[in-house]
């Protein structure tokens, strides 16, 4: 997934294509089947790929030691084999692609582990002036996912920089309506804040703004912890 960078996104807008969205679910993979989040028998070291999931594990599973994998090129299978960690939290789609389904010990609850922004979407840039670029755009591009991505991208730009690694949410387009459920995990307060908005217009920027405003209102109403 392409990292948020508004300058470069604008330069290459619109993307060549935005793909159909893959699974949003997170799973735990481990060599030992007993490595599960609700198994309090061990103090498991669980590798995670995002600061969001690191914070969520700390918040909801105090007996788990999350290990943020800072090198994203790392091979999950090799890491598990090295015994540096007991298990890893990975997107379902990644596990399927890597043929690691046999190592799945638990499927995450999407309410406990909501998807990071853009989860499951693949974007392509460049090649729009070529024959293969035109062909693959015609074959792959999903207008509804492009609108959803625009909404999620805009939401990321509307919240304070410090919260961006902890954002989650997914937008969906049905007919002429957009709805988005999203929020953030505040690592300092150890709180998850989330809500949902929908509008009956295909205006992703407006939908993202509504979500950001609603979250801000909720946070202000809660007051300092």
């Amino acid at each position: 997934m392409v990292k948020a960078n508004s300058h470069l996104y604008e330069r290459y807008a619109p993307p060549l294509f935005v793909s159909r969205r893959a699974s949003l679910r997170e799973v735990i993979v481990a060599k030992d089947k007993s490595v599960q989040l609700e198994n309090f028998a061990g103090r498991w070291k669980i590798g995670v790929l995002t600061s969001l999931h690191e914070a969520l594990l700390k918040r909801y599973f105090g007996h788990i030691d999350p290990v943020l994998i800072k090198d994203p090129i790392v091979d999950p299978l090799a890491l598990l084999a090295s015994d540096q960690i007991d298990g890893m939290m990975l997107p379902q789609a990644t596990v399927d692609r890597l043929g690691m389904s046999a190592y799945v010990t638990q499927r995450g609850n999407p309410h406990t582990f909501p998807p990071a922004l853009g989860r499951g979407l693949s974007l392509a840039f460049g090649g729009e002036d070529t024959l293969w670029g035109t062909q693959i755009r015609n074959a792959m591009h999903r207008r509804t996912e492009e609108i959803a991505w625009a909404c999620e991208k805009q939401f990321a730009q509307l919240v304070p920089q410090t919260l961006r690694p902890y954002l989650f949410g997914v937008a969906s387009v049905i007919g002429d309506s957009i709805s988005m459920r999203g929020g953030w995990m505040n690592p300092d307060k150890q709180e998850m804040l989330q809500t949902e908005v929908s509008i009956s217009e295909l205006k992703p920027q407006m939908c993202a703004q509504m979500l950001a405003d609603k979250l801000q209102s909720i946070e202000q109403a809660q007051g300092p912890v």
Partner: protein
Amino acid sequence: MALKVGVQPGKEAFAILQPVLDWFEQSGETVELVTVAEPWEALEQKKLSSLW
């Protein structure tokens, strides 16, 4: 000649690219995936056909 396609570092990118790879296979195009640390620069400099 294979299209040289850059992907952002991370296994997730490879996972969600599967439908794209399938498309190339079916269409007879060959594609070489390249994991690049500075993908945007590589695209600017035409070292990549596309960036996913």
